[in-house]
Protein backbone atom coordinates (compact mmCIF):
# COMPACT_ATOMS: atom_id res chain seq x y z
CA UNK A 1 0.00 0.00 0.00
CA UNK A 2 2.81 2.37 0.93
CA UNK A 3 4.49 1.62 -2.38
CA UNK A 4 1.42 2.69 -4.32
CA UNK A 5 1.36 5.95 -2.38
CA UNK A 6 5.03 6.49 -3.22
CA UNK A 7 4.30 5.97 -6.91
CA UNK A 8 1.35 8.37 -6.77
CA UNK A 9 3.51 10.98 -5.03
CA UNK A 10 6.20 10.59 -7.69
CA UNK A 11 3.64 10.95 -10.50
CA UNK A 12 2.17 14.07 -8.89
CA UNK A 13 5.60 15.65 -8.55
CA UNK A 14 6.54 14.91 -12.16
CA UNK A 15 3.23 16.34 -13.43
CA UNK A 16 3.81 19.44 -11.26
CA UNK A 17 7.32 19.77 -12.71
CA UNK A 18 5.95 19.64 -16.28
CA UNK A 19 3.36 22.32 -15.49
CA UNK A 20 5.99 24.53 -13.85
CA UNK A 21 8.31 24.28 -16.87
CA UNK A 22 5.40 25.13 -19.22
CA UNK A 23 4.61 28.17 -17.06
CA UNK A 24 8.23 29.28 -17.13
CA UNK A 25 8.22 29.11 -20.93
CA UNK A 26 4.88 30.93 -21.03
CA UNK A 27 5.88 33.91 -18.95
CA UNK A 28 9.11 34.62 -20.84
CA UNK A 29 7.65 33.92 -24.27
CA UNK A 30 5.92 37.24 -24.92
CA UNK A 31 7.63 40.60 -25.21
CA UNK A 32 6.62 43.58 -23.10
CA UNK A 33 5.17 45.49 -26.07
CA UNK A 34 2.10 43.23 -26.13
CA UNK A 35 -0.87 45.16 -24.80
CA UNK A 36 -1.96 44.24 -21.23
CA UNK A 37 0.56 41.42 -20.97
CA UNK A 38 0.55 41.71 -17.19
CA UNK A 39 -2.91 40.18 -16.89
CA UNK A 40 -1.80 37.25 -19.02
CA UNK A 41 1.27 36.75 -16.85
CA UNK A 42 -0.75 36.84 -13.63
CA UNK A 43 -3.03 34.25 -15.20
CA UNK A 44 -0.07 32.03 -16.15
CA UNK A 45 1.37 32.37 -12.67
CA UNK A 46 -1.78 30.75 -11.29
CA UNK A 47 -0.88 27.49 -13.05
CA UNK A 48 2.53 27.36 -11.36
CA UNK A 49 0.99 28.34 -8.02
CA UNK A 50 -1.46 25.45 -8.13
CA UNK A 51 1.27 23.05 -9.31
CA UNK A 52 3.42 24.09 -6.34
CA UNK A 53 0.46 23.64 -3.96
CA UNK A 54 -0.14 20.11 -5.26
CA UNK A 55 3.60 19.36 -5.00
CA UNK A 56 3.63 20.63 -1.40
CA UNK A 57 0.69 18.35 -0.60
CA UNK A 58 2.64 15.43 -2.10
CA UNK A 59 5.63 16.40 0.06
CA UNK A 60 3.55 16.09 3.26
CA UNK A 61 3.25 19.84 3.90
CA UNK A 62 -0.51 20.43 4.08
CA UNK A 63 -0.36 23.53 6.29
CA UNK A 64 1.99 25.28 3.89
CA UNK A 65 -0.15 24.29 0.90
CA UNK A 66 -3.42 25.45 2.48
CA UNK A 67 -1.86 28.75 3.61
CA UNK A 68 -0.62 29.50 0.12
CA UNK A 69 -3.90 28.30 -1.41
CA UNK A 70 -5.77 30.96 0.56
CA UNK A 71 -3.22 33.77 0.15
CA UNK A 72 -2.35 33.58 -3.54
CA UNK A 73 -5.73 34.66 -5.02
CA UNK A 74 -5.66 37.81 -2.89
CA UNK A 75 -2.14 38.58 -4.06
CA UNK A 76 -2.98 38.03 -7.74
CA UNK A 77 -6.09 40.21 -7.43
CA UNK A 78 -4.10 42.93 -5.68
CA UNK A 79 -1.53 42.98 -8.50
CA UNK A 80 -4.17 43.17 -11.24
CA UNK A 81 -6.12 45.81 -9.30
CA UNK A 82 -3.01 47.92 -8.76
CA UNK A 83 -2.13 47.74 -12.44
CA UNK A 84 -5.65 48.66 -13.54
CA UNK A 85 -6.11 51.64 -11.24
CA UNK A 86 -2.50 52.69 -10.80
CA UNK A 87 0.05 51.97 -13.44
CA UNK A 88 -2.07 51.45 -16.54
CA UNK A 89 -3.99 54.70 -16.18
CA UNK A 90 -0.80 56.80 -16.08
Amino acid at each position, binding site marked *: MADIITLIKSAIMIIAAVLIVLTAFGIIRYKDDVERILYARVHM*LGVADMACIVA*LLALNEPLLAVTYFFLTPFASHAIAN*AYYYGEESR
Partner: protein
Amino acid sequence: MVRVDNNKLQGVKMDILQISEYILMAALAFYAIATIRIATRKTISMGIVGLLGLSIAVATILILVNNIYGIAFCKDIAYALVILGPIGTIAFSKVIRGW
Protein backbone atom coordinates in the same frame (compact mmCIF):
# COMPACT_ATOMS: atom_id res chain seq x y z
CA MET B 1 9.57 -19.73 -9.44
CA VAL B 2 10.97 -16.20 -9.58
CA ARG B 3 12.04 -14.79 -6.26
CA VAL B 4 11.79 -11.04 -5.87
CA ASP B 5 14.12 -9.48 -3.37
CA ASN B 6 11.93 -7.19 -1.25
CA ASN B 7 14.77 -4.89 -0.24
CA LYS B 8 15.80 -4.40 -3.84
CA LEU B 9 12.20 -3.59 -4.82
CA GLN B 10 11.92 -1.06 -2.03
CA GLY B 11 15.19 0.51 -3.15
CA VAL B 12 13.82 0.96 -6.66
CA LYS B 13 10.64 2.62 -5.32
CA MET B 14 12.66 4.97 -3.16
CA ASP B 15 14.74 5.88 -6.16
CA ILE B 16 11.62 6.78 -8.13
CA LEU B 17 10.54 9.19 -5.38
CA GLN B 18 13.98 10.72 -5.18
CA ILE B 19 14.30 11.07 -8.94
CA SER B 20 10.93 12.82 -9.11
CA GLU B 21 12.03 15.17 -6.33
CA TYR B 22 15.16 16.06 -8.29
CA ILE B 23 13.09 16.60 -11.47
CA LEU B 24 10.77 18.94 -9.55
CA MET B 25 13.77 20.79 -8.14
CA ALA B 26 15.24 21.31 -11.62
CA ALA B 27 11.88 22.56 -12.92
CA LEU B 28 11.59 24.97 -10.01
CA ALA B 29 15.13 26.27 -10.59
CA PHE B 30 14.25 26.97 -14.24
CA TYR B 31 11.01 28.65 -13.15
CA ALA B 32 12.88 30.76 -10.59
CA ILE B 33 15.24 32.03 -13.31
CA ALA B 34 12.24 32.85 -15.53
CA THR B 35 10.55 34.79 -12.72
CA ILE B 36 13.76 36.74 -12.01
CA ARG B 37 13.83 37.68 -15.70
CA ILE B 38 10.21 38.88 -15.44
CA ALA B 39 10.99 40.81 -12.25
CA THR B 40 13.62 42.87 -14.06
CA ARG B 41 11.18 44.30 -16.63
CA LYS B 42 10.60 48.03 -16.59
CA THR B 43 7.17 48.33 -14.95
CA ILE B 44 6.74 47.99 -11.19
CA SER B 45 3.77 45.62 -11.48
CA MET B 46 5.86 43.21 -13.52
CA GLY B 47 8.44 43.19 -10.73
CA ILE B 48 5.76 42.26 -8.22
CA VAL B 49 4.52 39.44 -10.46
CA GLY B 50 8.05 38.08 -10.77
CA LEU B 51 8.71 38.21 -7.05
CA LEU B 52 5.40 36.49 -6.20
CA GLY B 53 6.39 33.62 -8.48
CA LEU B 54 9.92 33.56 -7.08
CA SER B 55 8.72 33.35 -3.47
CA ILE B 56 6.66 30.18 -4.00
CA ALA B 57 9.40 28.63 -6.16
CA VAL B 58 12.04 29.18 -3.46
CA ALA B 59 9.67 27.95 -0.73
CA THR B 60 9.03 24.70 -2.62
CA ILE B 61 12.76 24.28 -3.30
CA LEU B 62 13.45 24.70 0.43
CA ILE B 63 10.86 22.05 1.31
CA LEU B 64 12.51 19.72 -1.21
CA VAL B 65 15.93 20.41 0.34
CA ASN B 66 14.44 19.60 3.74
CA ASN B 67 13.08 16.31 2.39
CA ILE B 68 16.19 15.24 0.48
CA TYR B 69 19.03 16.42 2.74
CA GLY B 70 17.22 16.60 6.09
CA ILE B 71 18.07 20.25 6.82
CA ALA B 72 15.33 21.18 9.28
CA PHE B 73 15.55 24.98 9.30
CA CYS B 74 14.69 25.12 5.59
CA LYS B 75 11.09 24.42 6.55
CA ASP B 76 10.97 27.49 8.83
CA ILE B 77 12.32 29.70 6.05
CA ALA B 78 9.73 28.23 3.65
CA TYR B 79 6.92 29.05 6.09
CA ALA B 80 8.17 32.62 6.43
CA LEU B 81 8.39 32.98 2.63
CA VAL B 82 4.93 31.57 1.99
CA ILE B 83 3.30 33.88 4.52
CA LEU B 84 5.31 37.05 3.95
CA GLY B 85 5.57 36.78 0.12
CA PRO B 86 1.87 37.24 -0.71
CA ILE B 87 1.32 39.67 2.19
CA GLY B 88 4.19 41.86 0.98
CA THR B 89 2.81 41.67 -2.55
CA ILE B 90 -0.62 42.81 -1.36
CA ALA B 91 0.87 45.67 0.67
CA PHE B 92 3.05 46.90 -2.21
CA SER B 93 0.13 46.64 -4.63
CA LYS B 94 -1.94 48.85 -2.34
CA VAL B 95 0.83 51.45 -2.42
CA ILE B 96 0.98 51.37 -6.23
CA ARG B 97 -2.76 51.69 -6.54
CA GLY B 98 -2.83 54.66 -4.19
CA TRP B 99 -4.60 54.70 -0.86
